[in-house]
């Protein structure tokens, strides 16, 4: 059996198969897979006995439930006012420059994706970003380069590549 299928079955066992268990299941798949594929959404629909279109419609409502293939590390830079005032755009440019991809893209090795997001709730420590679920604040171009280098080194040192 496909591992995603297993994952979805396990999640459904854990959370339940009612409609109100849909979000935790979607989140569980995204936690592991970083995005919801057609295959995943169909499997979830089947598991919860609902239409695949409804799963798709629900998932696409939520910014963190991506439905396009994403990198292992999703960088989400806050673009809302406080962060923008404190230079989130320069931080974004530094990231794009370092990873050689643009906003919305994923590195060819499938490691990083860059996205923008709305207010992360760290306006007093702006600019802020998330890498997966980790928050980084008071960013500068220099600081963000250090953070990314740390991730890149971590991968080089052989953290297992899930993709």
């Amino acid at each position, binding site marked *: 059996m496909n591992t995603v299928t297993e994952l979805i079955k396990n999640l459904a066992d854990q959370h339940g198969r009612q409609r109100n268990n849909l979000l935790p299941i979607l989140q569980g798949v995204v936690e592991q897979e970083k995005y919801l594929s*057609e295959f995943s*959404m*169909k499997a979830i*629909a*089947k598991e919860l006995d*609902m*239409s*695949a*279109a*409804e*799963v*798709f*419609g629900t998932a*696409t*409502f939520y910014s963190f439930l991506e*439905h396009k293939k994403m990198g292992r590390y999703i960088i989400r830079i806050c673009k809302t006012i406080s962060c923008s005032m404190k230079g989130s755009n320069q931080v974004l440019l530094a990231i794009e420059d370092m990873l050689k991809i643009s906003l919305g893209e994923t590195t060819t090795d499938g490691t990083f994706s860059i996205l923008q997001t709305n207010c992360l709730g760290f306006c007093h420590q702006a600019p802020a970003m998330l890498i997966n679920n980790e928050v980084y604040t008071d960013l500068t171009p220099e600081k963000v380069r250090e953070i990314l280098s740390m991730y890149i080194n971590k991968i080089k040192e052989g953290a297992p590549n899930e993709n």
Partner: protein
Amino acid sequence: MESKIKIKINGETVEVEKGTSMLEAAKQVGVIIPTLCYHKDLCVAGNCRVCVIEVVGQKRLSPACATPCEDGFEILTNSLKVRNSRKYILELLLSEHNADCTRCYKNGNCELQRLASEYKIMEQDFIRLVPFKNYTIDKFSPSIIKDDSKCIRCQRCVRTCAELQGVNALAVAFKGDQMKITTFFEKALNDVICTNCGQCINHCPTGALVERNYIEEVWDAIADKTKHVVVQTAPAVRVGLGEELGFEPGTRLTGKMVSALKHLGFDAVMDTDFTADLTIMEEGTELLTRLKKVLVDHDPNVRLPMATSCSPGWIKFIEHLYPEHLDILSSCKSPQQMFGALVKTYYAQARKINPDKIISVSIMPCTAKKFEANRPEMHDSGYRDVDYVLTTRELAIMIKQAGIDFNRLEDMHFDRLMGESTGAGVIFGSTGGVMEAALRTVYEIVTGREVPFEKLNIIPVRGTEGIREVSVKIENPLKEWAFLDGIELNCAVAHGLVNAKKVMNSIISGQTNYHFVEFMACPGGCLGGGGQPIPTSPEIRQKRAEAIYAEDAGMPLRKSHLNPEIIKIYKDFLGEPLSEKSHHLLHTKYVKRGM
């Protein structure tokens, strides 16, 4: 609980039931409030905001459709604030809408256009958003065209697909400015679980969902002198067509319709009701055969109930959602496809026409029939059995294009050979009709007596309840049907796919013990089909149903097996029901589609 409350609408006091919506209350005093997302068939959404009204003392306006009246409310439906807000909302909708009305298929029958006209939205101050959007048009389905640039996001189609049909092929996706009505991963309707029932079209206020029309193709065929163009008309068309031509709902126009079709230039005008009668012969015999296989032979490969197969929306539904249960379907083709197979064989032979030269057109209350005619299985005549399927609406368009003054038409009769029908064929157009027609014939085959209901009217299977049941006890059968003696034939009728789903689930779980079930995809059966005139509502469908049953009551023959042309076709061509030839031409197989 007696709970009347008093409210004032535009100064006039009115007493209403507690919980009545402001929209309903206003209607009671003859005040019309414009609506777009509201539809009588559907739950209240309250999202278009066109129906906003002012409650005196409240700063914000309230949506009349979604707000219950409260005692002492003073409501203004036409204050300056209301008028200005409504105008703004209409302007907003138009700014997001491809308002190229003259090039729109729904031009003249569009609720947004009508409101824009009423409110005289003349200027376009707001920025046109259409060029900024990545609107797409889905033309891949043989039945339905979905044009996102015409969509106003009222979600009537989504609610229809969910609440009436239980299909949920359409869903709301994304949010904010990106929010749209779409399918799973924005695929073409043809590539998802869409049943092509067309109910979304019937409930769409604009031109975002329309039937794929074949009007020009049919005009071309008619104009081609080398072609013999044959047309068949489904039972429900004759009670719906009038609505498109200025008649009240429920007007029966069979004779005028035949006359109009002749004026349009069809070479032969015949009746799907004929093959409806034929379906009864085949399906009724099939039912008896299955009953025998189960009850007498204990054949492990056959099970009950047997489900009807004349509604192509229902067929695609079961193929998608219950692919493991296709064996319960009758193998009978729908009347349209039986007709198609016979036109290019039986009719061609009898009239000595090369089937190659025949163009077979059908007029259907249905959009799923377009898909059905397009199925690769439907070539048993050696040709495509039905070349073009037009909806009732498309026929009305042709009649108008031809400049026919419908009122002045003489009543005419269908052409012979496949034009004769009985009342049993007519009632195919209504939910419960196939069941009633089948029982009239089957009971008589088995017992030699008429079905034991007054004037052949099997009232329990008629009506608008989503699921209806009837049991008919078989007593003193003829000798060859002795195994049925004393058996209660449990029958059920379901219309609207959401009800079909309930019945299917009850069958699978073993909660019910039916022998025979009629399934119709559309609410009300074919008379409420996705190809019928727009608007639709429970009241309109009720009127059409009354017309169908009146048509039946007025027929000299009301049992399929008495149709002289049916007797003739078995004698001259088919042999007997379920004969080899019947199997070849009139029966089919189904496809496991899944999700």
